[in-house]
Protein backbone atom coordinates (compact mmCIF):
# COMPACT_ATOMS: atom_id res chain seq x y z
CA UNK A 1 0.00 0.00 0.00
CA UNK A 2 0.94 3.65 -0.44
CA UNK A 3 4.14 4.67 1.38
CA UNK A 4 3.96 1.69 3.68
CA UNK A 5 7.62 2.12 4.49
CA UNK A 6 7.24 5.51 6.13
CA UNK A 7 6.49 5.50 9.81
CA UNK A 8 4.17 8.53 9.75
CA UNK A 9 0.57 7.85 10.81
CA UNK A 10 -2.04 7.66 8.05
CA UNK A 11 -3.66 10.79 9.47
CA UNK A 12 -2.46 13.22 12.07
CA UNK A 13 -4.52 16.16 13.32
CA UNK A 14 -2.98 18.81 15.56
CA UNK A 15 -4.67 21.75 17.29
CA UNK A 16 -7.38 21.85 14.64
CA UNK A 17 -9.92 24.69 14.82
CA UNK A 18 -12.63 25.46 12.29
CA UNK A 19 -16.25 26.46 11.99
CA UNK A 20 -18.84 28.34 10.01
CA UNK A 21 -19.23 32.13 9.59
CA UNK A 22 -18.02 33.58 12.87
CA UNK A 23 -18.83 30.50 14.96
CA UNK A 24 -16.04 28.13 15.97
CA UNK A 25 -17.24 24.54 15.99
CA UNK A 26 -13.89 22.83 16.59
CA UNK A 27 -11.74 24.51 19.20
CA UNK A 28 -8.32 22.97 18.82
CA UNK A 29 -8.25 19.20 18.86
CA UNK A 30 -5.68 16.61 17.96
CA UNK A 31 -5.46 12.84 17.38
CA UNK A 32 -3.90 10.31 15.04
CA UNK A 33 -5.04 7.40 12.92
CA UNK A 34 -2.19 4.88 12.74
CA UNK A 35 -1.60 2.98 9.50
CA UNK A 36 -4.13 0.17 9.27
CA UNK A 37 -5.93 1.38 12.37
CA UNK A 38 -9.57 2.21 12.89
CA UNK A 39 -10.27 5.26 15.01
CA UNK A 40 -13.81 6.29 15.86
CA UNK A 41 -15.16 9.68 16.86
CA UNK A 42 -18.34 9.51 18.90
CA UNK A 43 -20.32 12.31 20.45
CA UNK A 44 -23.67 14.02 20.56
CA UNK A 45 -25.20 15.47 17.41
CA UNK A 46 -24.24 19.00 16.48
CA UNK A 47 -20.95 18.99 18.38
CA UNK A 48 -18.58 18.93 15.45
CA UNK A 49 -18.15 15.34 14.22
CA UNK A 50 -19.10 16.12 10.64
CA UNK A 51 -17.30 19.47 10.81
CA UNK A 52 -14.15 17.58 11.79
CA UNK A 53 -14.29 15.34 8.71
CA UNK A 54 -15.15 18.29 6.47
CA UNK A 55 -12.15 20.21 7.77
CA UNK A 56 -9.79 17.26 7.29
CA UNK A 57 -10.88 16.83 3.67
CA UNK A 58 -10.72 20.55 2.93
CA UNK A 59 -14.42 21.32 2.41
CA UNK A 60 -14.01 23.68 5.36
CA UNK A 61 -10.88 25.74 5.83
CA UNK A 62 -9.00 25.15 9.09
CA UNK A 63 -8.69 28.31 11.20
CA UNK A 64 -5.77 26.91 13.18
CA UNK A 65 -3.82 23.69 13.47
CA UNK A 66 -2.43 21.17 11.01
CA UNK A 67 -3.68 18.12 9.11
CA UNK A 68 -1.12 15.62 7.83
CA UNK A 69 -1.75 12.70 5.52
CA UNK A 70 1.05 10.12 5.60
CA UNK A 71 3.23 12.81 7.12
CA UNK A 72 2.45 15.30 4.38
CA UNK A 73 0.98 18.64 5.48
CA UNK A 74 -2.27 19.22 3.55
CA UNK A 75 -3.69 22.01 5.72
CA UNK A 76 -5.42 24.68 3.65
CA UNK A 77 -5.36 22.74 0.38
CA UNK A 78 -8.49 22.60 -1.79
CA UNK A 79 -10.54 19.40 -1.34
CA UNK A 80 -9.59 18.04 -4.78
CA UNK A 81 -5.88 18.29 -3.83
CA UNK A 82 -6.46 16.60 -0.49
CA UNK A 83 -8.33 13.84 -2.33
CA UNK A 84 -5.28 13.46 -4.57
CA UNK A 85 -3.10 13.12 -1.45
CA UNK A 86 -4.93 9.85 -0.72
CA UNK A 87 -8.04 10.58 1.32
CA UNK A 88 -11.43 9.05 0.53
CA UNK A 89 -14.15 10.93 2.39
CA UNK A 90 -17.50 9.13 2.35
CA UNK A 91 -19.72 12.01 3.42
CA UNK A 92 -22.81 11.97 5.59
CA UNK A 93 -25.97 11.39 3.56
CA UNK A 94 -23.95 9.77 0.74
CA UNK A 95 -23.99 12.80 -1.60
CA UNK A 96 -24.32 10.57 -4.64
CA UNK A 97 -24.80 12.14 -8.06
CA UNK A 98 -28.55 11.50 -8.23
CA UNK A 99 -29.02 11.62 -12.01
CA UNK A 100 -26.04 9.38 -12.77
CA UNK A 101 -26.17 5.62 -12.85
CA UNK A 102 -24.52 3.60 -10.11
CA UNK A 103 -21.72 2.71 -12.54
CA UNK A 104 -21.16 6.37 -13.42
CA UNK A 105 -21.07 7.28 -9.73
CA UNK A 106 -18.42 4.61 -9.20
CA UNK A 107 -16.42 5.81 -12.22
CA UNK A 108 -16.45 9.31 -10.75
CA UNK A 109 -14.76 7.80 -7.70
CA UNK A 110 -11.82 6.87 -9.92
CA UNK A 111 -11.73 10.37 -11.45
CA UNK A 112 -8.08 10.90 -10.57
CA UNK A 113 -7.02 7.53 -12.00
CA UNK A 114 -6.36 7.61 -15.75
CA UNK A 115 -5.17 4.02 -16.25
CA UNK A 116 -8.15 2.13 -17.72
CA UNK A 117 -6.83 -1.22 -16.47
CA UNK A 118 -6.56 0.02 -12.90
CA UNK A 119 -10.07 1.51 -13.06
CA UNK A 120 -11.46 -1.83 -14.30
CA UNK A 121 -9.63 -3.65 -11.51
CA UNK A 122 -11.08 -1.33 -8.85
CA UNK A 123 -14.57 -1.65 -10.34
CA UNK A 124 -14.34 -5.44 -10.20
CA UNK A 125 -13.12 -5.21 -6.59
CA UNK A 126 -16.02 -2.93 -5.55
CA UNK A 127 -18.60 -5.11 -7.31
CA UNK A 128 -17.07 -8.14 -5.58
CA UNK A 129 -17.24 -6.49 -2.15
CA UNK A 130 -20.69 -4.95 -2.70
CA UNK A 131 -22.53 -7.30 -5.10
CA UNK A 132 -25.76 -5.31 -4.75
CA UNK A 133 -24.08 -2.49 -6.67
CA UNK A 134 -23.30 -4.81 -9.56
CA UNK A 135 -27.01 -5.70 -9.80
CA UNK A 136 -27.95 -2.03 -9.75
CA UNK A 137 -25.14 -0.72 -11.95
CA UNK A 138 -27.36 0.73 -14.70
CA UNK A 139 -29.94 2.21 -12.36
CA UNK A 140 -29.78 5.93 -11.61
CA UNK A 141 -28.64 6.68 -8.08
CA UNK A 142 -31.83 8.54 -7.17
CA UNK A 143 -33.76 5.27 -7.48
CA UNK A 144 -31.71 3.35 -4.90
CA UNK A 145 -32.90 2.42 -1.41
CA UNK A 146 -31.25 3.97 1.63
CA UNK A 147 -28.98 0.99 2.25
CA UNK A 148 -28.00 0.74 -1.42
CA UNK A 149 -27.20 4.44 -1.47
CA UNK A 150 -24.90 3.98 1.53
CA UNK A 151 -23.19 1.05 -0.21
CA UNK A 152 -22.81 3.16 -3.37
CA UNK A 153 -21.28 5.99 -1.31
CA UNK A 154 -18.77 3.59 0.22
CA UNK A 155 -18.12 1.94 -3.15
CA UNK A 156 -17.48 5.29 -4.76
CA UNK A 157 -15.03 6.16 -1.98
CA UNK A 158 -13.24 2.85 -2.50
CA UNK A 159 -12.92 3.57 -6.23
CA UNK A 160 -10.53 6.36 -5.24
CA UNK A 161 -7.98 3.73 -4.33
CA UNK A 162 -7.04 5.64 -1.17
CA UNK A 163 -5.68 3.90 1.90
CA UNK A 164 -7.28 6.37 4.29
CA UNK A 165 -11.07 6.37 4.55
CA UNK A 166 -13.11 8.99 6.38
CA UNK A 167 -16.60 7.58 6.87
CA UNK A 168 -19.31 9.81 8.30
CA UNK A 169 -22.15 8.07 10.20
CA UNK A 170 -22.55 5.06 7.92
CA UNK A 171 -25.47 3.78 9.99
CA UNK A 172 -27.53 6.98 9.92
CA UNK A 173 -31.19 6.30 9.18
CA UNK A 174 -30.75 2.64 8.20
CA UNK A 175 -32.55 -0.48 9.41
CA UNK A 176 -30.57 -2.63 11.90
CA UNK A 177 -30.02 -5.45 9.41
CA UNK A 178 -28.58 -3.03 6.85
CA UNK A 179 -26.38 -1.41 9.50
CA UNK A 180 -24.98 -4.85 10.25
CA UNK A 181 -24.14 -5.37 6.56
CA UNK A 182 -22.49 -1.96 6.29
CA UNK A 183 -20.33 -2.62 9.36
CA UNK A 184 -19.47 -6.02 7.92
CA UNK A 185 -18.06 -4.23 4.88
CA UNK A 186 -16.16 -1.70 6.98
CA UNK A 187 -14.70 -4.57 9.02
CA UNK A 188 -13.54 -6.21 5.78
CA UNK A 189 -11.88 -2.97 4.71
CA UNK A 190 -10.01 -2.79 7.99
CA UNK A 191 -8.92 -6.39 7.59
CA UNK A 192 -7.46 -5.41 4.21
CA UNK A 193 -5.18 -3.00 6.04
CA UNK A 194 -6.89 0.27 5.26
CA UNK A 195 -6.79 3.11 7.75
CA UNK A 196 -10.22 4.29 8.82
CA UNK A 197 -11.55 7.31 10.63
CA UNK A 198 -15.16 6.62 11.47
CA UNK A 199 -17.79 8.94 12.85
CA UNK A 200 -20.55 7.13 14.72
CA UNK A 201 -23.18 8.06 17.25
CA UNK A 202 -23.43 4.72 18.99
CA UNK A 203 -20.15 3.39 20.47
CA UNK A 204 -21.59 -0.11 20.89
CA UNK A 205 -21.65 -0.53 17.10
CA UNK A 206 -17.90 -0.10 16.80
CA UNK A 207 -16.90 -2.07 19.90
CA UNK A 208 -15.31 -4.88 17.88
CA UNK A 209 -14.00 -2.64 15.11
CA UNK A 210 -12.36 0.44 16.58
CA UNK A 211 -8.83 0.44 18.01
CA UNK A 212 -9.50 3.73 19.74
CA UNK A 213 -12.48 5.94 20.45
CA UNK A 214 -12.45 9.68 20.96
CA UNK A 215 -15.41 11.40 22.54
CA UNK A 216 -16.08 14.74 20.86
CA UNK A 217 -18.14 17.24 22.80
CA UNK A 218 -18.55 20.92 22.12
CA UNK A 219 -15.73 20.98 19.61
CA UNK A 220 -13.09 19.31 21.77
CA UNK A 221 -12.03 15.74 22.56
CA UNK A 222 -13.12 15.13 26.13
CA UNK A 223 -12.19 11.46 26.51
CA UNK A 224 -10.08 8.93 24.62
CA UNK A 225 -9.59 5.24 25.10
CA UNK A 226 -10.56 1.74 23.99
CA UNK A 227 -14.21 1.05 23.03
CA UNK A 228 -14.74 -1.47 25.85
CA UNK A 229 -13.52 1.09 28.36
CA UNK A 230 -16.00 3.67 27.13
CA UNK A 231 -18.84 1.15 27.20
CA UNK A 232 -18.02 0.41 30.84
CA UNK A 233 -18.16 4.08 31.83
CA UNK A 234 -21.85 4.59 32.48
CA UNK A 235 -21.39 8.19 33.59
CA UNK A 236 -19.73 9.15 30.27
CA UNK A 237 -22.39 7.39 28.25
CA UNK A 238 -25.13 9.09 30.27
CA UNK A 239 -23.57 12.56 30.07
CA UNK A 240 -22.56 12.62 26.43
CA UNK A 241 -24.43 9.96 24.58
CA UNK A 242 -27.74 9.92 26.36
CA UNK A 243 -27.37 6.24 27.16
Amino acid at each position, binding site marked *: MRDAATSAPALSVEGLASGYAGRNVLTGLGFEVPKGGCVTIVGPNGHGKTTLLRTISGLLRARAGRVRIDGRDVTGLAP*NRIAAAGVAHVPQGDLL*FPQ*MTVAENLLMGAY*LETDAGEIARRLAYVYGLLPKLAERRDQIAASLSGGERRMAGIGRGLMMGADLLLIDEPSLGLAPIIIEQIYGVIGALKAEGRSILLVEENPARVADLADAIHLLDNGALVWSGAPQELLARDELLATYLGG
Partner: protein
Amino acid sequence: MDIIGPVLVAGLTTGALYALATLGLSLVWGALGMLNMAHGAMLTLGGYAAFSAVRTLGLPPALGVVAAAAAGVAAGALIHLLVASPLARRSPETFQTTIMIATFGVAIALENAILTVYGGQPFGQPVALRGFARVGPVTAPWQNLLIMGVALALMGAVALYLTRTRGGRAIRAVSQNREAAELLGVSSQGVYLRVLALSGGLAGVCGVMVSSITQLSPTLGGDPMLKAFIMCVVAGLGNIPGAIAASFGLAIVEAFVQYLAGARWGFPTLLAIVILVLVWRPNGLFGRAQVQRL
Protein backbone atom coordinates in the same frame (compact mmCIF):
# COMPACT_ATOMS: atom_id res chain seq x y z
CA MET B 1 -51.42 22.27 -48.00
CA ASP B 2 -48.03 23.03 -49.61
CA ILE B 3 -47.47 25.75 -47.01
CA ILE B 4 -46.96 23.30 -44.14
CA GLY B 5 -43.57 22.27 -45.53
CA PRO B 6 -41.97 25.75 -45.62
CA VAL B 7 -43.47 26.71 -42.25
CA LEU B 8 -42.12 23.50 -40.76
CA VAL B 9 -38.67 24.19 -42.27
CA ALA B 10 -38.74 27.70 -40.78
CA GLY B 11 -39.84 26.31 -37.41
CA LEU B 12 -37.17 23.61 -37.38
CA THR B 13 -34.49 26.15 -38.34
CA THR B 14 -35.41 28.55 -35.55
CA GLY B 15 -35.77 25.55 -33.25
CA ALA B 16 -32.21 24.49 -34.06
CA LEU B 17 -30.98 28.03 -33.34
CA TYR B 18 -32.92 28.27 -30.08
CA ALA B 19 -31.65 24.86 -29.07
CA LEU B 20 -28.05 25.85 -29.73
CA ALA B 21 -28.44 29.12 -27.80
CA THR B 22 -30.23 27.28 -24.99
CA LEU B 23 -27.65 24.52 -24.72
CA GLY B 24 -24.86 26.87 -23.66
CA LEU B 25 -27.06 28.83 -21.30
CA SER B 26 -28.42 25.65 -19.71
CA LEU B 27 -24.98 24.05 -19.27
CA VAL B 28 -23.76 27.13 -17.39
CA TRP B 29 -26.87 27.30 -15.24
CA GLY B 30 -26.64 23.61 -14.40
CA ALA B 31 -22.98 23.65 -13.42
CA LEU B 32 -22.56 27.08 -11.85
CA GLY B 33 -26.10 28.10 -10.89
CA MET B 34 -25.42 31.26 -12.86
CA LEU B 35 -27.59 33.05 -15.41
CA ASN B 36 -25.08 34.35 -17.91
CA MET B 37 -26.62 37.57 -19.19
CA ALA B 38 -23.64 37.99 -21.53
CA HIS B 39 -24.62 34.85 -23.46
CA GLY B 40 -26.31 36.92 -26.18
CA ALA B 41 -23.28 39.20 -26.49
CA MET B 42 -21.12 36.10 -27.05
CA LEU B 43 -23.43 35.17 -29.94
CA THR B 44 -22.93 38.64 -31.40
CA LEU B 45 -19.19 38.39 -30.90
CA GLY B 46 -19.11 35.08 -32.78
CA GLY B 47 -21.08 36.53 -35.69
CA TYR B 48 -18.66 39.44 -36.06
CA ALA B 49 -15.57 37.26 -35.55
CA ALA B 50 -16.64 35.11 -38.51
CA PHE B 51 -17.38 38.24 -40.55
CA SER B 52 -13.90 39.68 -39.86
CA ALA B 53 -12.14 36.38 -40.47
CA VAL B 54 -13.75 36.02 -43.90
CA ARG B 55 -14.04 39.66 -45.04
CA THR B 56 -10.90 41.20 -43.52
CA LEU B 57 -8.50 38.26 -43.30
CA GLY B 58 -9.82 36.54 -46.41
CA LEU B 59 -10.15 33.13 -44.72
CA PRO B 60 -12.51 30.50 -46.14
CA PRO B 61 -16.02 30.45 -44.56
CA ALA B 62 -15.35 27.20 -42.65
CA LEU B 63 -12.46 28.88 -40.85
CA GLY B 64 -14.80 31.80 -40.17
CA VAL B 65 -16.92 29.42 -38.08
CA VAL B 66 -13.78 28.23 -36.28
CA ALA B 67 -12.85 31.87 -35.57
CA ALA B 68 -16.34 32.46 -34.16
CA ALA B 69 -16.01 29.44 -31.88
CA ALA B 70 -12.53 30.55 -30.77
CA ALA B 71 -13.75 34.08 -29.98
CA GLY B 72 -16.63 32.62 -27.95
CA VAL B 73 -14.33 30.22 -26.07
CA ALA B 74 -12.00 33.10 -25.19
CA ALA B 75 -14.89 35.31 -24.08
CA GLY B 76 -16.37 32.52 -21.94
CA ALA B 77 -13.03 31.75 -20.32
CA LEU B 78 -12.41 35.44 -19.58
CA ILE B 79 -15.88 35.81 -18.05
CA HIS B 80 -15.01 32.95 -15.71
CA LEU B 81 -11.55 34.18 -14.79
CA LEU B 82 -12.32 37.90 -14.46
CA VAL B 83 -15.95 37.96 -13.32
CA ALA B 84 -17.52 34.71 -12.13
CA SER B 85 -14.61 33.25 -10.18
CA PRO B 86 -13.78 36.43 -8.17
CA LEU B 87 -17.48 37.03 -7.41
CA ALA B 88 -18.03 33.45 -6.29
CA ARG B 89 -14.97 33.58 -4.06
CA ARG B 90 -15.77 36.92 -2.42
CA SER B 91 -19.49 36.53 -1.82
CA PRO B 92 -20.76 33.02 -2.46
CA GLU B 93 -24.05 33.83 -0.68
CA THR B 94 -25.06 36.57 -3.12
CA PHE B 95 -23.43 35.03 -6.22
CA GLN B 96 -26.66 34.19 -8.06
CA THR B 97 -27.73 37.84 -8.00
CA THR B 98 -24.39 39.59 -8.41
CA ILE B 99 -23.36 37.42 -11.35
CA MET B 100 -26.51 38.37 -13.25
CA ILE B 101 -25.79 42.06 -12.80
CA ALA B 102 -22.09 41.64 -13.54
CA THR B 103 -22.63 39.63 -16.73
CA PHE B 104 -25.31 42.11 -17.79
CA GLY B 105 -22.56 44.74 -17.50
CA VAL B 106 -20.24 42.54 -19.58
CA ALA B 107 -22.96 42.27 -22.21
CA ILE B 108 -23.36 46.06 -22.44
CA ALA B 109 -19.59 46.54 -22.65
CA LEU B 110 -19.19 43.89 -25.37
CA GLU B 111 -22.09 45.25 -27.38
CA ASN B 112 -20.67 48.77 -27.24
CA ALA B 113 -17.19 47.57 -28.11
CA ILE B 114 -18.65 45.94 -31.22
CA LEU B 115 -20.59 49.12 -32.00
CA THR B 116 -17.37 51.16 -31.71
CA VAL B 117 -15.34 48.81 -33.89
CA TYR B 118 -17.88 47.94 -36.59
CA GLY B 119 -20.44 50.75 -36.38
CA GLY B 120 -24.19 50.36 -36.09
CA GLN B 121 -25.05 49.60 -39.72
CA PRO B 122 -26.01 45.98 -40.38
CA PHE B 123 -23.80 43.70 -42.48
CA GLY B 124 -24.59 40.53 -44.34
CA GLN B 125 -22.96 37.41 -42.88
CA PRO B 126 -20.52 36.07 -45.50
CA VAL B 127 -20.59 32.60 -43.93
CA ALA B 128 -23.79 31.40 -45.59
CA LEU B 129 -24.80 28.94 -48.29
CA ARG B 130 -26.88 30.12 -51.24
CA GLY B 131 -29.54 28.25 -53.15
CA PHE B 132 -32.28 25.76 -52.35
CA ALA B 133 -32.56 22.04 -51.91
CA ARG B 134 -35.60 19.97 -52.82
CA VAL B 135 -36.45 17.37 -50.18
CA GLY B 136 -39.40 15.44 -51.58
CA PRO B 137 -42.23 17.94 -52.01
CA VAL B 138 -40.53 20.58 -49.83
CA THR B 139 -38.06 23.23 -50.98
CA ALA B 140 -35.63 24.35 -48.28
CA PRO B 141 -32.75 26.84 -48.41
CA TRP B 142 -29.37 25.11 -48.09
CA GLN B 143 -28.47 27.54 -45.30
CA ASN B 144 -31.45 26.35 -43.23
CA LEU B 145 -30.39 22.75 -43.71
CA LEU B 146 -26.83 23.70 -42.76
CA ILE B 147 -28.12 25.34 -39.56
CA MET B 148 -30.08 22.22 -38.62
CA GLY B 149 -27.10 20.02 -39.43
CA VAL B 150 -24.62 22.11 -37.45
CA ALA B 151 -26.97 22.39 -34.48
CA LEU B 152 -27.65 18.64 -34.43
CA ALA B 153 -23.95 17.82 -34.80
CA LEU B 154 -22.98 20.17 -31.97
CA MET B 155 -25.73 18.88 -29.70
CA GLY B 156 -24.67 15.32 -30.43
CA ALA B 157 -21.04 16.16 -29.74
CA VAL B 158 -21.91 17.85 -26.44
CA ALA B 159 -24.10 14.90 -25.43
CA LEU B 160 -21.27 12.46 -26.17
CA TYR B 161 -18.80 14.64 -24.31
CA LEU B 162 -21.04 14.86 -21.23
CA THR B 163 -21.87 11.16 -21.06
CA ARG B 164 -18.86 9.35 -22.47
CA THR B 165 -15.79 11.25 -21.35
CA ARG B 166 -14.12 11.76 -18.01
CA GLY B 167 -14.17 15.57 -18.35
CA GLY B 168 -17.85 15.56 -19.31
CA ARG B 169 -18.78 13.30 -16.40
CA ALA B 170 -16.97 15.73 -14.11
CA ILE B 171 -19.17 18.57 -15.41
CA ARG B 172 -22.31 16.55 -14.68
CA ALA B 173 -20.93 15.57 -11.28
CA VAL B 174 -20.28 19.19 -10.29
CA SER B 175 -23.76 20.14 -11.56
CA GLN B 176 -25.37 17.45 -9.44
CA ASN B 177 -23.29 17.78 -6.29
CA ARG B 178 -20.31 20.10 -6.21
CA GLU B 179 -18.94 19.05 -2.82
CA ALA B 180 -19.09 15.35 -3.61
CA ALA B 181 -17.26 15.97 -6.88
CA GLU B 182 -14.54 17.95 -5.11
CA LEU B 183 -14.10 15.15 -2.57
CA LEU B 184 -13.39 12.81 -5.48
CA GLY B 185 -10.64 15.05 -6.81
CA VAL B 186 -12.55 17.22 -9.30
CA SER B 187 -11.45 20.85 -9.41
CA SER B 188 -14.73 22.74 -9.50
CA GLN B 189 -12.95 25.88 -10.71
CA GLY B 190 -11.52 23.90 -13.62
CA VAL B 191 -15.00 22.58 -14.45
CA TYR B 192 -16.48 26.10 -14.35
CA LEU B 193 -13.77 27.34 -16.69
CA ARG B 194 -14.44 24.50 -19.14
CA VAL B 195 -18.20 24.97 -19.01
CA LEU B 196 -18.05 28.71 -19.66
CA ALA B 197 -15.52 28.23 -22.47
CA LEU B 198 -17.68 25.48 -24.01
CA SER B 199 -20.83 27.58 -23.72
CA GLY B 200 -18.96 30.53 -25.27
CA GLY B 201 -17.83 28.39 -28.20
CA LEU B 202 -21.38 27.15 -28.79
CA ALA B 203 -22.66 30.74 -28.57
CA GLY B 204 -20.06 31.88 -31.10
CA VAL B 205 -21.14 29.28 -33.68
CA CYS B 206 -24.78 30.00 -32.92
CA GLY B 207 -24.14 33.70 -33.61
CA VAL B 208 -22.79 32.87 -37.06
CA MET B 209 -25.84 30.77 -37.82
CA VAL B 210 -28.32 33.37 -36.56
CA SER B 211 -26.67 36.18 -38.55
CA SER B 212 -26.55 34.03 -41.67
CA ILE B 213 -30.34 34.09 -41.99
CA THR B 214 -30.84 37.60 -40.54
CA GLN B 215 -27.98 40.08 -40.54
CA LEU B 216 -25.08 41.19 -38.39
CA SER B 217 -25.86 43.95 -35.94
CA PRO B 218 -24.56 44.74 -32.44
CA THR B 219 -27.83 43.59 -30.88
CA LEU B 220 -27.87 40.31 -32.83
CA GLY B 221 -27.69 38.04 -29.78
CA GLY B 222 -30.46 39.69 -27.77
CA ASP B 223 -33.42 37.91 -29.31
CA PRO B 224 -31.92 34.39 -29.34
CA MET B 225 -30.82 34.82 -25.72
CA LEU B 226 -34.28 35.93 -24.66
CA LYS B 227 -35.75 32.90 -26.42
CA ALA B 228 -33.11 30.68 -24.83
CA PHE B 229 -34.16 31.93 -21.38
CA ILE B 230 -37.74 31.11 -22.25
CA MET B 231 -36.80 27.57 -23.31
CA CYS B 232 -34.76 27.05 -20.13
CA VAL B 233 -37.62 28.25 -17.93
CA VAL B 234 -40.26 26.21 -19.76
CA ALA B 235 -38.15 23.07 -19.56
CA GLY B 236 -36.90 23.64 -16.00
CA LEU B 237 -33.59 25.40 -15.45
CA GLY B 238 -30.55 23.22 -15.99
CA ASN B 239 -32.45 20.42 -17.76
CA ILE B 240 -30.59 20.22 -21.07
CA PRO B 241 -32.59 17.55 -22.97
CA GLY B 242 -35.80 19.24 -21.86
CA ALA B 243 -34.59 22.64 -23.02
CA ILE B 244 -33.72 21.24 -26.45
CA ALA B 245 -37.13 19.58 -26.75
CA ALA B 246 -38.80 22.85 -25.70
CA SER B 247 -36.72 24.76 -28.26
CA PHE B 248 -37.93 22.70 -31.19
CA GLY B 249 -41.49 22.38 -29.91
CA LEU B 250 -42.00 26.08 -29.20
CA ALA B 251 -40.19 27.22 -32.35
CA ILE B 252 -42.57 25.12 -34.45
CA VAL B 253 -45.55 26.52 -32.51
CA GLU B 254 -44.16 30.02 -33.05
CA ALA B 255 -43.69 29.44 -36.79
CA PHE B 256 -47.25 28.21 -37.23
CA VAL B 257 -48.75 31.02 -35.11
CA GLN B 258 -46.77 33.53 -37.17
CA TYR B 259 -48.07 31.99 -40.37
CA LEU B 260 -51.68 31.67 -39.26
CA ALA B 261 -52.12 34.83 -37.16
CA GLY B 262 -49.31 37.12 -38.32
CA ALA B 263 -45.67 37.59 -37.36
CA ARG B 264 -46.41 39.85 -34.42
CA TRP B 265 -48.32 37.08 -32.59
CA GLY B 266 -45.34 34.72 -32.38
CA PHE B 267 -43.58 36.19 -29.37
CA PRO B 268 -46.72 36.94 -27.29
CA THR B 269 -47.76 33.33 -27.82
CA LEU B 270 -44.41 32.10 -26.51
CA LEU B 271 -44.74 34.33 -23.45
CA ALA B 272 -48.28 33.12 -22.83
CA ILE B 273 -47.05 29.52 -22.95
CA VAL B 274 -44.29 30.34 -20.44
CA ILE B 275 -46.78 31.91 -18.03
CA LEU B 276 -49.17 28.98 -18.33
CA VAL B 277 -46.39 26.45 -17.82
CA LEU B 278 -45.09 28.28 -14.76
CA VAL B 279 -48.56 28.52 -13.24
CA TRP B 280 -49.10 24.83 -13.85
CA ARG B 281 -45.57 23.64 -12.99
CA PRO B 282 -43.40 26.26 -11.23
CA ASN B 283 -40.22 24.23 -11.80
CA GLY B 284 -40.81 23.89 -15.54
CA LEU B 285 -42.18 21.02 -17.59
CA PHE B 286 -39.36 18.62 -16.74
CA GLY B 287 -37.89 20.49 -13.76
CA ARG B 288 -37.08 19.24 -10.31
CA ALA B 289 -36.91 21.46 -7.25
CA GLN B 290 -33.97 23.81 -7.51
CA VAL B 291 -30.90 23.40 -5.37
CA GLN B 292 -28.89 26.39 -4.25
CA ARG B 293 -25.33 26.13 -5.53
CA LEU B 294 -21.95 27.82 -4.97
